[in-house]
């Protein structure tokens, strides 16, 4: 269990301090400031000093810190810290020093509710918003009326949903978002390619709907004896994780996904797939160092998806040596710019059509240095988002909604594949 919770700013000043157990003094925060914040050598997210352990997460310009005095579950503490960050974001959009200072009363109120005596309690954002309110999130009338209902919900078996939700139009939106991880070697061999998928759902459904959700999961299709379904239509999921509303026992027995959704937006599931990944982009690189004062780049980018689709916000970050003085870059599409502060050439392409190819050629001039340190050639990083494309090949086959009133509901599905710092290609000579 967690003995104390703190938020520090970068200078080590305490913004929020809450002790849950009596085995600590408030001055413990000074220890953290001295030993962690003002110590540049700290490389571990958990520090144990004496018998006190500090768990910290840095986010924007604040440290969110949990302190324990026992052999606590480390995963639990970090999960809690990250949950706190998520909750804060949903209350005041961004967690940084300013927002913490502006919302400290709210933060104390939230902490009071989500953790008691060091044991995390209810951390469902939807439920919290029913009775912990701010000017922007106001439903105070509801609180007055039936706090007993709230409390039942906060503790009940479906703590995530009120029973009296009503919509005129019953709709459900499903977003399949895939983050593509790629690590490609110098020689162009794929070292690692996998997909971290996320299925987000926005449910605007009345009553207590019972939902069934189906994917082109290979195991399900095979189980059905559906041998006619060709194996390349199905996707092999290495692992799935579900929102707590999904009945895990049922998934374990027959891999069906059934649940009563929370009202509004939530993450229904996460999954991971490693086989048959369609890489949306291919990159050919040629980087040479003809002399000590020059590096030449030829980068060839090919969009490797259907020509009817588009990729947006394609950004390549091409590293340059630390002693670069200037870069001349030529591109066919988009814009390329050298950013000295980060030692990269940033090549931005707002939109690429499928099967399109583009090339960048650039020359970096280097300053003469006395001691020649080998340049470590960091990988090129590619960020993008491709709409209506899933790198894993995953498709939503159905979403069925059953409710006792028997209403019709409209469902929408969107797909998106993206990369955010995770698509890395090593540079060849």
């Amino acid at each position, binding site marked *: *269990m967690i003995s104390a919770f703190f938020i520090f700013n970068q200078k080590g000043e305490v*913004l929020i*301090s809450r002790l849950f157990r*009596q*085995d600590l*003094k*408030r001055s413990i925060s000074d*220890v953290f400031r001295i030993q962690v914040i003002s110590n540049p050598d700290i*490389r*571990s*997210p*958990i520090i144990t*000093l*004496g*018998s*006190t*352990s500090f768990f910290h997460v840095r986010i924007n310009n604040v440290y969110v810190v949990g302190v*324990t*005095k*026992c*052999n*606590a*579950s*480390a*995963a*639990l503490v*970090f*999960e809690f810290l*990250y949950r706190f960050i998520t909750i804060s974001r949903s209350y005041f959009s961004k967690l940084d020093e300013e927002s913490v200072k502006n919302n400290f009363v709210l933060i104390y109120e939230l902490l*009071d509710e989500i953790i008691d*005596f060091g*044991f*995390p*309690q*209810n951390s*469902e954002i939807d439920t919290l918003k029913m009775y912990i309110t701010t000017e922007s999130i106001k439903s105070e009338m509801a*609180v007055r009326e039936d706090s007993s209902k*709230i*409390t*039942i919900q906060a*503790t*009940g*078996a479906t703590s995530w949903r009120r029973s009296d939700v009503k919509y005129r139009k019953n709709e459900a939106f499903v977003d399949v978002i895939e983050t593509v991880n790629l690590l490609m*070697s110098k020689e162009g061999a794929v070292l690692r390619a996998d997909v971290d998928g996320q299925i987000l759902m926005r449910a605007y459904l009345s009553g207590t709907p019972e939902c069934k959700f189906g994917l082109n999961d290979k195991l399900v299709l095979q189980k059905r004896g559906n041998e006619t379904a060709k194996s390349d239509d199905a996707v092999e999921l*290495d*692992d799935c*994780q579900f929102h*707590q509303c999904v009945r*895990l*026992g049922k*998934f374990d027995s027959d891999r069906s996904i059934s649940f009563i959704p929370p009202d509004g937006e939530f993450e229904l*599931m*996460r999954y*991971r797939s*490693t086989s048959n990944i369609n890489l949306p982009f291919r990159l050919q690189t040629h980087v040479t160092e003809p002399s000590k004062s020059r590096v030449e780049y030829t980068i060839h980018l090919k969009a490797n998806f259907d020509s009817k689709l588009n990729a947006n916000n394609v950004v390549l970050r091409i590293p340059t040596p630390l002693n670069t003085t200037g870069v001349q870059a030529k591109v066919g599409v988009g814009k390329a710019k050298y950013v000295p502060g980060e030692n990269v050439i940033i090549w931005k392409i707002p939109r690429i059509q499928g099967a399109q190819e583009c090339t960048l050629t650039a020359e970096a001039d280097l300053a003469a240095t006395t001691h020649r340190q080998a340049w*470590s050639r960091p*990988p090129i990083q590619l960020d993008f988002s491709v709409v209506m494309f899933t790198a894993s090949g995953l498709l939503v086959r159905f979403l069925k909604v059953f409710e006792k009133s028997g209403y019709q509901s409209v469902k929408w599905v969107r797909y998106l594949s993206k990369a955010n710092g*995770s698509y*890395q290609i*090593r540079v060849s000579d």
Partner: protein
Amino acid sequence: MAMAPPRKGENYELRQQLNSEYRDKRADAIKRVIANHTIGKDCSGLFPDVVKNMQTDDLEQKKLVYLYLMNYAKTQPELVILAVNTFVKDTADPNPLVRALAIRTMSILRAEKILDYLASPLSRCLKDDNPYVRKTAALCVAKVFDLKPELCIEYGFVETLRDLISDGNPMVVANAVAALADIYEASLNLPDSPPSDGTSTPPLSAKPNSELFIIDGPTLTKLLVALNECSEWGRIAILNTLARYKAQDEKESEHICERVIPQFQHVNAAVVLGAVKVIMIHMKAVTREDLIKSLTRKMAPPLVTLISSPPEVQWVALRNINLLLQKRPDILANEMRVFFCKYNDPPYVKVEKLDIMVRLASEKNVDTLLGELKEYASEVDVDFVRKAVRAVGQVAIKIDEAAERCVGVLMDLIETRVSYVVQEAVIVIKDIFRKYPHSYEGIIPTLCSNLDELDEPEAKASLIWIIGEYAEKIENADELLGTFLETFKEESYPVQLQTLTAIVKLFLKKPDESQAIVQRVLQAATKDCDSADVRDRAYIYWRLLSSDPAAAKSVVLAVRPPISLPQTTVSPAILDELLNEVSSLASVYHKPAATFIGKGRLGAEEMQRRALEPEEDNAREKALQTVVAGQQAENLLDFDADDDQPQPNTSASSSNLQSLSMFGNSSSSTSNGITSATISNVAKSTNPLDELMDLFSTASMNPPQSNHPPPIAPKSTVEGIQGLQDDHDAFAGLSGLSSPPTTINSGSSNPPQQSNTTGGAQDDLLGLF
């Protein structure tokens, strides 16, 4: 209450506002009080004025007043009584939120007086109609127990808690389970205070009946049902309890495993690791091969998924995976690729991934792995690069078939001429020579040509060892060793030792050419050297050589035992213990909880009890307090919760702080490692006498060289048997640290007093630096 409050300043202004007739003005003032409190200003003077605002319909304002009370009740115990009435009234409020809030706050106020008023509202709330109030009240029992165990016994709260496990609401069940576990742990500490401690043992009635904590069959069923229904945090509490449960027979173990497996699909990493823990524990009793297979098979994907969590969670998962692999190396056999380091991974994650990759290395994937390691060796982070190079050597030792390829990679790395890469590669190659003697002699000339670039003792010593070992094959061995002999006096001791031994080897192999040089080195080592080790070794050689050269040959050129990569980094007993605690801090640090938690919690509680019952002070206590008073002068580092804990002194506690931060200064010298570890022990103990004992016993248990990380066992095996001395640690490292090295040269003359296991644990602790 002695001084009249000042009539100006912020507190005065706040007081005015708190007593204002306007509601929003008062509400605003309370907020400011809380803000002041957060930044550390003392607001205790406003106590009566804040408490006046407690009776309000505004839930938010009430919460703030309660928050204030929680922080200051301890300092103003006589004033807390003012608030009691409102509290008791609130616990009967029609609004369940208010009831819960009141009971929650009331039970955490650390004031003796209020506790007496708490009992009857708490019993009422434990039986409340509303589950929200019940689940809050359940935790309150643990809070009260922490404060005054006798009260819980007197009113039978623990029994009530036990009944709550059968509650219909899963959240209530989860909190009851969590509270029981907490009380159980606290009650373990109660009578266990050592009699020599001099503290009054609490009256027996303070310890609840231990049968209350035993889980029986029906309870198990209830827990398994609640597991699927309650919130993620509740699941963790229940999983922890399941981990403690002793299954009656194999059937039951199987049943538990089957019911827990679905939790692998939970999105919360702590739930997943909690489930892994339960499975690892109960799987021990399972004998059905197919079930074990299916369990381990199902365990792999969720573990791999954890690698895409945020870096901190990832790190926790990686450390646990590292442990799991030591027990069951096969679970992730085909998953090495997911452990490839990303360029932007934080360093602590990278290092851990590296370690796991070596564990997963096999003949099938070794080529990919070597390609990766070579890539990492060109990165900028020196520490990581060195570890990557070291990993190449570990792979070579682990997989015989790949050794040649590894040597190839190392030679490529040496060609880069980056100083630290070359040095690390030389050290690693020395280990390869130990494992595969006479296999790769062709690379020796290349190594020797890099002689001038080596400036680190370990690298130098390694190269000298190689030269000595192959002296008969190296044409100019005497010349090379001669260069080291010239600077003999300036070299560090390990280099001196190696130079000495290498030259003696050279002499034994080519006696005709090296008569002169061996004379010189023996002279230098016996006359000009101030290290006893070097001098003694020189004398021994000298005598051996002069009395019986054949004996010298059999000693110095003896066949060394083979080295291998240890399968585990901790001893099997500790490994099992750690696997019972998957996802906990102990499993992250790879050392048992006792080594870093100490008796901190017990100490704190004892101190509190003493503070509550001053009449029990005896003479010893007073003496203790006098000591404390002298040392307590605003010590910022007095982090150990209780004000009364004696700290050895400031500098000691600061080095203690250094020593336990895992990734602290890894290059700290060996002797530092010892002292700081010893001191950390001292600081943990509450009894000054124990401290002294610890100091001696740990000092005598740890020869100063045992500072090498255990996984890289062969690192310091420069000299084997023929070294004659001080290489015990290397072999201890190889044998998985199961037995403590015999003490030869510790600074203290005390005989070892601790059991073997403690010695092993200490080694582990040191190994982490």
